[in-house]
């Protein structure tokens, strides 16, 4: 677990990238972890099927917020339909978390928010 709590993750938790509410998004994706109440909302500006702006807000642990922040820049300029096909491994590989970790759901909440975009 210590491998997951890297300086980079903690930094992304303390100062998350693109954090805040977008006033008039074209798409939003919300995900809630029922176990702990952590939640993420992703806001997307969409022009001709492409992400032209993206932000998120919510509340959660370092893994939840840090994961969303770590992945969010990569989502810019992507095709929306490609985005919806994103796999959980994308974030688990990025933060070095094994699939059987008790904290998997904290990390994959970010992926769920992306998949829930509508």
């Amino acid at each position: 677990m210590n491998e997951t709590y890297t300086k980079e993750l903690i930094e992304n938790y303390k100062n998350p990238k693109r954090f805040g509410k977008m006033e008039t998004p074209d798409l939003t994706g919300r995900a809630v972890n029922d176990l702990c109440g952590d939640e993420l909302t992703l806001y997307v500006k969409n022009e001709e099927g492409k992400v032209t702006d993206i932000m998120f807000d919510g509340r959660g642990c370092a893994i939840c917020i840090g994961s969303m922040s770590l992945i969010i820049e990569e989502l810019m300029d992507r095709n929306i339909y490609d985005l919806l096909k994103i796999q959980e491994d994308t974030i688990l590989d990025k933060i070095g978390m094994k699939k059987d970790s008790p904290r998997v759901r904290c990390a994959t909440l970010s992926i769920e928010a992306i998949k829930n975009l509508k």
Partner: protein
Amino acid sequence: MNIKSQFPIFNNNKGLIYLDSASTTQKPEAVIDSIVQQYSNNNSNVHRGLYKIAYKTDTKWVEAHSIVAKYINAKSYKEVFFTKNSTEGLNWIANTVSLSPDDVVVISEMEHHSNVLPWMKVSKEKGVILEKIKVSEEGTLDLSHLKELVSKYGNRMKVVSVLHQSNVLGTVNNVEEIVKVAKTVGALTVIDAAQSIAHMEIDVQKIGCDVLVFSSHKIYGPSGIGVVYCKEELLNSFEPWLRGGEMVKSVEEDNILYNDLPWKFEAGTPAIEAGIGLGIALKWFEKSVEELGGWSEFKRKEKALTTLLVDGLKEIEGIKLVGGEIEREGIVSFNIDGIHPHDISSLLDENGICVRAGYHCVQPLHQKLGLNGSTRVSLGIYNTKEDIEETIKQLKKVVNIFRK
């Protein structure tokens, strides 16, 4: 006397510091052995067989009820029946007591979900008013509010069901006083002793309550077994909630003859080994408390550890305990600015330290106090000064990871 060495889990997990006994306690070898022995030597059903091993099992089953009755000072084993856990006991009474529209049930703002949800269901289904005794900002129960409710509703108040010790705050409610006030309007009194059972003497006659519930697994016994204490005259007047085998003597077309107390309330084959194991656990616990110097010495030691923990926590920058300057008994919950409880729990686990993170099944209290969960440290008979010191040391390291 070395308590820790009597628990195989600490021998099998070197360096384990278990601080989640409010969730469930670890099991001493004596209890684990009793389960193996029951299955290895006497396995058979209860109240059914006419052969020797069945007789032995029956004897042990009745004996377990007697041990429980004696432990909580019930008048006889007839006032004690076994359930799955405290939750089932509370569901039993909520579904058993006769309630009509506009009757009033009183719980409190610090209840575990198990003493909230069954009454919410009854309230919705029967049109019963559900009131909650207020909890002060400090984290204590406002008994003057209970008195106000008594004045407001009078004998429409049919049930007062409250917990003995809060599993979040660690505070102990004055249940004797609560029962006394509730009895002025003749309300049925229910005490949830799930948390207090392993931390103080429980005397149902002294408390004066009608019903008291607890779970075996929180007092070093097996999981899957719980206890309901209920006054005999009430048990005689109640219809059984669960029906099936064991709880009847005869079943004819229009005539059902219920079994004697307490078996009338134990429908179906129970967790036999666990019930017998609970008896062994209570005997073991009683003996251990005695060897530690009796209840007053046991409580003094636990209080000293709690104080050590509270003082250590207070040294941590940005810490906020759940509840103010209150009397905590072996349970302390807290938050640290900018660090999520789940991160604290995961990082402590890296060092073999087990603590609970989240709502602890008490979301309404957390919401009232404006908290999105907390981290909880709770003590058991096996915890030592070293456990607390190591935990505080590791907690400071966790904070450093986030503060750097």
